[in-house]
């Protein structure tokens, strides 16, 4: 890779050993990718808050944790303040409901300490998979270095920002240096559409956007789908669900819906004159097949947990869930957990929504989710969720059965304790 003078200086250790190590990692990573150079970034989202996990050794200091886990270094450095605007993504612990998560006091204290360490180094404790819902909204063309596949696909596609799916070590290196390899979706020509999707079924509600996303991801893998004939205007929640599903079943990091997403007004513009690699369509048959597939781990209609808010719910979704609860209460054998970023929970507190949920027997949680935090109510065998992403991961990670359906069917399951959801 060609390096600029400031990059060479960092590599030579002029800004200390930690920054030097960060630059070494970026050079090795850029060379592996085949990148020709690095690009400046001042918007980084990563995951450096530490929590113990099976297989990890005991660490002696937070500098050691950052050096090993975030910079892949066996040597411990004194970690300086971050150089780039940096945000912490979703983690393991809800600061309010950690006892409900059955987190031990010792683990709680370690995570809280790690959060303070990160904040003191200049990392914003957004603690969500959706930074774009709580103020980090990149603009079109902005070079970013973000982790979290569902957030990457959202800011690339809907907002037109430029990032690859980064990992913990590359984002930490970007935080300390303000650099990331100029490769992949940072380049205009790499952002051209590759696959044409004829959306024949009129996709309108939240569930169908998730189903369409899961289908498209399966069909294109990590390529760039272009969706034609979408005859409605999706909202933030629907595109969030679509992208999360497509990045889960495939590895979609960028898509175009001409006329709606940031970079293409027409199908022609989306493909940038490149040939279309494959065409396929999404109709009623594909829709029903994906619904079946998403429900393939579920048999028992008795639901132990209903999980909503993957990716994290926004205030509109919380309001809608409160309306669906409509004064009813959650069944005595079932839990209803809703997940949101903590600044949105604060808004829900002020709006009275947290209280409405509590009165119904539901819990509004933040900062984490059952898949990331690996926690469920004791004895949970069956979950239900309105998230294609969560129903993909949770049965594999937590060895439970998972029902997938509409938000309304999920709230009904919470109230009655039984899954009666379906698709027409």
């Amino acid at each position: 890779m060609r390096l600029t003078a400031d990059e060479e200086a960092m590599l030579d250790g002029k800004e200390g050993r930690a920054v030097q190590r960060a630059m070494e990692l970026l050079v090795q990573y850029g060379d592996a990718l085949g990148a020709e150079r690095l690009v400046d970034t001042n918007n980084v989202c990563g995951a450096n808050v530490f929590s113990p996990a099976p297989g990890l050794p005991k660490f002696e200091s937070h500098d050691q944790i950052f050096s090993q886990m975030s910079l892949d270094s066996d040597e411990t450095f004194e970690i300086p303040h971050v150089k780039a605007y940096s945000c912490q993504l979703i983690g393991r612990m809800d600061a309010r409901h950690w006892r409900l998560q059955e987190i031990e006091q010792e683990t709680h204290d370690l995570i809280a300490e790690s959060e303070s360490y990160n904040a003191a180094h200049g990392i914003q404790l957004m603690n969500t998979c959706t930074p774009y819902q709580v103020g980090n909204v990149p603009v079109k063309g902005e070079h970013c270095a973000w982790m979290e596949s569902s957030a990457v696909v959202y800011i690339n596609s809907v907002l037109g920002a430029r990032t690859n799916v980064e990992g913990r070590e590359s984002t930490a290196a970007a935080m300390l240096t303000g650099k990331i390899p100029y490769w992949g979706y940072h380049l205009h020509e790499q952002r051209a559409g590759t696959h044409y999707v004829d959306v024949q079924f009129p996709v309108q509600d939240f569930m169908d956007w998730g189903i369409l996303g899961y289908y498209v991801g399966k069909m294109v893998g990590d390529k760039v789908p272009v969706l034609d004939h979408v005859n409605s205007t999706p909202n933030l929640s629907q595109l969030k669900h679509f992208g999360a599903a497509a990045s889960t079943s495939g590895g979609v990091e960028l898509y175009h819906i001409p006329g709606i997403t940031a970079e293409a007004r027409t199908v022609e513009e989306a493909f940038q004159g490149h040939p279309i690699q494959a065409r396929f369509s999404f109709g009623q048959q594909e829709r029903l097949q994906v619904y079946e597939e998403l429900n393939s781990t579920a048999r028992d209609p008795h639901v132990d947990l209903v999980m909503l808010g993957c990716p994290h719910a926004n205030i509109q979704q919380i309001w809608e869930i409160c309306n669906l609860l409509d004064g009813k209460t959650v069944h005595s054998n079932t839990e209803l957990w809703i997940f949101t970023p903590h600044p949105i929970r604060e808004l829900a507190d002020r709006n009275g929504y947290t209280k409405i949920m509590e009165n119904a027997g539901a819990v509004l949680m933040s900062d984490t989710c059952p898949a990331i935090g690996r926690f469920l109510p004791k004895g949970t065998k069956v979950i239900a969720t309105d998230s294609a992403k969560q129903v993909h991961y949770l049965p594999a990670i937590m060895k439970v059965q998972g029902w997938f359906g509409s938000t309304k069917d999920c709230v009904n399951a919470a109230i009655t304790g039984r899954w009666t959801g379906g698709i027409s």
Partner: protein
Amino acid sequence: MNSVILRGRPIVGGYAEGEALVTSQEISGWGGVEAASGTIIESRHELRGESFKGKVLVFPGAKGSSGWSGIFHTARLAGAAPKAMLFNTMTSKAALGAIVTRVPAITDFDQDPLSVIHTGDWLKIDGDRGVVEVIKRGDSPRTQV
């Protein structure tokens, strides 16, 4: 002698030998692999229940969550890393994951490793030069000089 040579682009240097574990399906890291044991846990994956610990992982590429590198990094610290990684499709996940796993890794092969290499074959990997020697199953590696 029943051996085949593959040449590719080196990603991470070093030398390793080991038994191949081959999948035609992409691998999901976070949520698809149990890091402490190196076991594939993704529902409906053809390698579900199998561990790559001590094996040479031969796969088409990385998919899924951005926690890919973090999982392979943890697997290394837990002593459950693969001995080497050979893959077809370069992505940011696979590149970073291979680097932090710190085992020889090669991509961009002159022949498709997924069709040439079968699970159980013995592999000799030169990560510095990007060369893989495939000794077909049934031949003892000791007899190959």
